[in-house]
């Protein structure tokens, strides 16, 4: 089971390790602040699918689902518990 805290930690670690920033706020908008580019966004989505065994389906293809650590973690938890975004 993917619990919220655990998921958040894993997602935050993945982003931190990839983009070398010191203090990433969980609600910081990754796209608006220019912290991540489109290439990394695809990596993040691919990571989420592989790591948590969830599939980003046609209805999930919204930037809002991946715009921050919190949003990405919430998406994973929602998908894991069978609720569709």
């Amino acid at each position, binding site marked *: 089971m993917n619990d919220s805290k655990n998921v958040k930690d894993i997602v935050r670690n993945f982003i931190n390790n990839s983009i070398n920033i010191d203090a990433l706020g969980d609600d910081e908008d990754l796209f608006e602040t220019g912290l991540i580019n*489109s290439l990394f966004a695809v990596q993040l*989505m*691919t990571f989420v699918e592989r790591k948590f065994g969830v599939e980003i389906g046609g209805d999930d293809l919204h930037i809002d689902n991946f715009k921050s650590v919190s949003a990405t973690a919430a998406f994973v938890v929602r998908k894991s518990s069978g609720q569709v975004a």
Partner: protein
Amino acid sequence: MKSHSRKNIMNFKTVGVVGVGNIGSGVLASLVLHGIRAVAVDVSEKSLETARAGILQTVRLAPVLRKDAPKLTRNEVLERIAFTTRLEEVSTCEFIIENVTEDWAVKKPIYERLDRIASAGVCFGANTSCISITRIGSATSRPDKVIGIHFMNPVHMMPTVEVIRGQHTSAETLATLNRLLAQLKKEAIVVNDLPGFVSNRISHLFMNEAAFVFQDGLATAAQIDAIFKKCFGHKMGPLETADLIGLDTVVSSLDVLYDSFKDSKFRCCPLLRKMVEAGHCGRKSGRGFHVY
């Protein structure tokens, strides 16, 4: 004349893509996202399989990054691309984009074969990093129909391409390419032809010097990239850009620039060459200046 003008306003239906590495795969994803069919050619089934997986992922996730991207099913994507190891299969394509290794010994025979395979009116877009378009044109009997297209990575996200007019490239060929680019919703910046063009001639000096700075222990890779991003406002630093392009490709391009200009400013940083020899080619091999 009338039928000729009509032909000019027709949309491209099938484009050949020769070489399906990083950029070739990106070009294929971009074509598919804009409703254009493609014939994808590479030397091995393994390369084609890697490309197929990458393209499916890129196209599937494209709507997250671009609101105007269509939501295509796996079958719709695969139905639009014919993957093959047989170069002859591009014979029915209306335009051919070549993205093979940055090595004249590899490119030259491909152009000689394409020249025999493709119909006389078909234009070739050379997606080369540094090799001059005029030189590529000279390997064919249609140098007027050879034009350089320098797509940026990730291809489907970048709205602008550097287009290079070789010595013999005709205005008609440029117009043909502009039609294709319009279908891909891209804009061209058209420049003249010398090795490296504008983008790579300048960017490789940045990347090479950044490698020297790293080699000299002046700063860490993260610091060097951070200075470009945080001080200059660039989206990416020179070392992560080199990692993205592939350090092997960067070394090959520097060698081409050095050979072409015989100018020592293009001499490749020894550390770059050593990293390639060690198999640390950047993002695609999991390690370069950064770890992925």
